[in-house]
Every structure is written in structure tokens, then in C-alpha cells.
């Protein structure tokens, strides 16, 4: 079945440093990948999405590239800010199904001064 793996449960970084949150997926269908961000006591919100192989997509300083050859969609930012502290979810939707998103376990990012 379809699945998403996020290897880091918790990432703690000092403000200004770069970050990469890992996301790999498994599906036999054409994949659509998403990154959602959830701040404390807030609803998850879409950060990035992509279905195009090897094309970088960016939003709010974050960027990710879908690599179908390695089944990866890692989230990166060159310089984290205190406001980036949040829970980040990678999600997969296969091209042939209606609606369903499969989420990874999530990565908690904590940015310290």
C-alpha cells in the first residue's frame, strides 16, 4: 500500500541555520506530494505541493524537489527563524485515487535563539 516515511521525529536547531526534513514515500501510482505545517494549537496548513519530477517548488522561504528516482520530497530552508517552530507533515496522494492523503508521522521542528 501507499506510505510516507519521515525519519526525524524531532529536530532542534539554532536560529539562522539551514534545515532539511526528510520525506520518502512508497506508491506504485503517479505521486502527488505535499508538505503541511501545524503550529501549536492551530490547524495544519498547506506549505508546498508538487507532482513534477525534478522541479523545485518554493513557498515562504521553504523549498522542496520531488525526485521520483529516489521517491523523495525533502523539505529545506536555508535559514530557520523562531517562527518556523512547528510540526511538519509530509503527505502523499496517488494519482488514481479520489481524495485520500497518506501522512507521515510528522517532524517537530524547534528553533532556539
Amino acid at each position, binding site marked *: 500500500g501507499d506510505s*510516507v516515511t*519521515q525519519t526525524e*521525529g524531532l529536530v532542534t536547531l539554532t536560529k539562522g541555520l539551514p534545515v532539511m526534513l526528510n520525506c520518502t514515500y512508497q506508491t506504485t501510482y503517479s505521486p*502527488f506530494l*505535499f508538505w503541511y505545517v501545524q503550529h501549536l*494549537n*492551530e*490547524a*495544519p*496548513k*498547506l506549505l508546498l*505541493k508538487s*507532482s513534477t519530477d525534478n522541479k523545485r517548488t518554493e513557498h515562504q522561504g521553504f523549498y522542496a524537489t520531488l525526485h521520483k528516482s529516489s521517491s523523495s520530497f525533502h523539505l529545506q530552508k536555508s535559514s530557520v527563524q523562531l517562527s518556523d517552530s512547528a510540526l511538519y*507533515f509530509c*503527505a502523499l*496522494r*496517488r*494519482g*488514481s*485515487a*479520489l*481524495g*485520500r*492523503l*497518506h*501522512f*507521515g*508521522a*510528522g517532524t517537530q521542528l524547534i528553533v532556539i535563539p
Partner: protein
Amino acid sequence: GGIITQTPKFLIGQEGQKLTLKCQQNFNHDTMYWYRQDSGKGLRLIYYSITENDLQKGDLSEGYDASREKKSSFSLTVTSAQKNEMAVFLCASSRQGTNTEVFFGKGTRLTVV
């Protein structure tokens, strides 16, 4: 824009009790979802509905019932609350399509005593 409203925000129940969570959306979206969020386990799909009166089981449907009364509302029933159960239940909605954004409510936090 639109909004997803979940009621109640906090729900305390007793073991064995039947509990109902409600969700309303004004996006005019066809598809609605119920996800359960547990710490360290990501978001797991309980039920979803691609149109009014439709119901599809997710990965975690045992112990739950759902009802799509009309296009804008989707309710979830915990059929028999389990003691010491604590989780956040997230309602979401989206247009149909593989690349469409899923919008989430802020959640109902359930505690069973």
C-alpha cells in the same frame, strides 16, 4: 476563503460512552475527511466522504461511525470511548482532484476518563 468549524473544541467522556463530533465547512467542497492525530503517529484517516450521502472507510474506522448529512456537514461518532484515550480529531475538506489542497479545522480534543 472559507472556514471549517469543529464542535466541540474539547470533549470529555466516560469509558463506554457514545460521543459525537461535528464539523461544518463553507468552502462548498465535495470531499470531507476525519483524521485522528496522536503524538508521534501523524494523521490517520478514519472516514471520508466524496459527496453527500457517500461514506468511505479509512485506515482507522473500527470503533467509529460517520455521517454526511449534507454537503457542508460531516459528523463522527466514537461508538464506545476507551478509557485513558486521548487524541485530537481533525476534520478536513477539499475539492475533488489529485492536486487539490486539503483544508483542516482546528480539531476536537478528546479525553476519556
